[in-house]
């Protein structure tokens, strides 16, 4: 099989996949009578039209990147982490707790401490499904989903109870949220008039760290081996259960860090809806980014665009914001299908044979 055909085939399949995704989305859009092309256009271009739009996209890119990095570590280690929503929530609780307990610590101490707390909280919430899988072979797909629901309840409990804003208690509307946290926690908003904060640099740094971890260290090697072939890894002396747990803890920690940064940079208090579906969007970003930090950064930007753009569609074209979830689902289905289609050598051979039969010029030899 020629390399030229292989590249052409791959590109062809990917293009078809993109078209299929857009078509599926179009079906839903047509069902609600929306203008398909206009909707796609709004989602993809509207946010980029001004400074605020771009920074808002970058803003969403931060948690998406961090969570996707964590999911990548887990996925490559052989465990699928659908619990990022819950891990993020627990991370936020930990961060908020630290900020409420130590409001007077200097910034240089509080910020790392609080983010670390978020990481620890998330890691603990990731440890549970990891240990359940490693020791009891419980499917992480189910345990992480259940833990999401449990974490959501815990979150609400704390926000309505121990962490409730005293102001809310006395005269408030009963909104479950904490008080405005100490300014010592604030991540700098470095562009005036926008909300983009220094968390984005943390996200990029974390991407580099994950790259080094997975491909340049022995720990990363062992995790990837465990994920690629659990049996061979075991036979090679690698303690697979241990690395499964480590991978899930890292994955949870990253979700927790994402939560901490969202609080410190964007909301400055713990409120409802902070996790905002980032846990699930992170999965799509990880897949779309090819489970590699270099791909995740642009993928996170793209999905930040998608999410922010979808917020605007309700106003501009009358398409509900739920549409973004539809698109994400479609993208996941299309990506995993495409991956499998491309990984099928028999199919490629048969298409090549067909192609040669159709395009063969007289006198030309068919290459096999």
């Amino acid at each position: 099989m020629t390399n030229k055909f292989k590249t052409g085939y791959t590109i062809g399949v990917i293009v078809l996949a993109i078209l299929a995704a857009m078509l599926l989305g179009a079906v839903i859009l047509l069902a609600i009578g929306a203008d398909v092309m206009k909707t796609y256009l709004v989602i993809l271009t509207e946010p980029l039209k001004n400074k605020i739009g771009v920074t808002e996209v970058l803003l969403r890119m931060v948690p998406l990147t961090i969570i996707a990095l964590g999911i990548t570590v887990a996925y490559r280690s052989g465990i699928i982490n659908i619990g990022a929503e819950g891990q993020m929530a627990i991370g936020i609780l930990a961060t908020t707790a630290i900020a409420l307990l130590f409001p007077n610590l200097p910034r240089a101490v509080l910020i790392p401490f609080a983010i670390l707390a978020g990481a620890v909280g998330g890691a603990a919430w990731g440890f549970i499904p990891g240990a359940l899988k490693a020791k009891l072979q419980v499917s992480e797909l189910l345990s992480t989903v259940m833990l999401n629901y449990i974490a959501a309840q815990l979150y609400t409990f704390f926000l309505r109870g121990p962490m409730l804003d005293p102001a809310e208690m006395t005269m408030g509307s009963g909104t479950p949220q904490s008080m405005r946290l100490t300014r010592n926690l604030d991540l700098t908003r470095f562009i005036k008039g926008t909300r983009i904060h220094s968390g984005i640099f943390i996200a990029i740094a974390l991407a580099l760290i994950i790259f080094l971890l997975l491909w340049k260290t022995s720990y990363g090697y062992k995790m990837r081996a465990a994920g690629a072939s659990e049996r061979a890894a075991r036979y090679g002396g690698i303690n697979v259960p241990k690395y499964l747990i480590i991978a899930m803890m890292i994955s949870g920690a990253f979700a927790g860090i994402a939560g901490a940064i969202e609080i410190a940079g964007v909301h400055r208090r713990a409120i409802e809806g902070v996790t905002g579906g980032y846990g699930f969007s992170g999965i799509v970003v990880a897949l779309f980014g090819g489970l590699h930090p270099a791909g995740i950064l642009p993928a996170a930007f793209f999905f930040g665009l998608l999410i922010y753009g979808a917020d605007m569609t309700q106003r501009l074209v009358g398409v509900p914001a739920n549409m973004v979830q539809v698109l994400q689902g479609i993208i996941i289905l299309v990506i995993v299908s495409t991956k499998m289609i491309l990984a099928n050598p028999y199919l490629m051979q048969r298409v090549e044979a067909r192609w040669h039969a159709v395009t063969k010029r007289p006198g030309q030899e068919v290459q096999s």
Partner: protein
Amino acid sequence: MTFIINILSLGIPFSVALLIASLGEMFNQRSGIFNLGCEGMMAMGAFLGMLVPYSIGKGADVPGIYNYLGLMLATGVGALLGIFFALVVVTFRAPQGIAGIGMQMFGVGTAGTLFRHFIGGTQSVPGINTAPIPGLSRIPVLGPLFFNHNPLVYVAFLLVPLSWWVLFKTPWGLRVRAVGTHPRAADSIGIQVNRVRYQALAVGGALAGLAGAYLSLCQAKMFSDEIIAGRGFIAVALVYFGQWHPVKIMGGALLFTLAQALQLAIQGLGIDFPYEFLVMLPYLLVIIVLAFSRKTQKMGPTSLGKPFNREMRT
């Protein structure tokens, strides 16, 4: 005592959605496929079930036929979604876990989008009411417990022996079980493995859609983004827990619903226990149950989760 009976008689209809969805998922898993997208199919079912009567009556009472049309629409579209999912995991052989999540997001998102567009807000429908069985519903204790429910409850519990029969006594059930345990053996004897899996997924999807419609038409009598509340995922776990057997699955469904009913009971009794911890209970129970159910694989579908590829030389 009446209080307990009341709680139990509330608990039984609560378990219906979970039961129907689980039985559907049982067929999926028996054929070798686990469908995490069950939640999404249920969401679509919930929306579609409600769509028909609402469109006709805009919230007012409508002739019962429209409710049943809604149920049928939900079931039909659920089957189509099952076939769509089969395309991804059977024909394209995509990994079932991630594909299931994709399906879930697609289903929940589409249901939410369509709902906001066509109905919006917190509209409710009168839905389907209880239909007490004449005579039987007057028996003390047993009457209100078993015979005073809406028709779908009876259907759901009848589904248990029916699916037992289909799975263990019919040729199709035999094929499904073979395909989920040893697809290569089934293939070598001339059974079309992929086709059987498509059929099983269509059945599973149909039942998921029906379960969702039950929630919107019979239980909550409305639709919201949170209406499914993880029942689709719990259904998938329940099938494991029930060892792919209809009767054990029914037991599991009742058990989980009891946890939910407990929440209402405790609230009803006025005990001051944080509401959120009670809501957590069923989900916690699932994890505990999963942790302790060593899959006795021997009698279950041992090819669960593995795509079938005839050309693969093992």
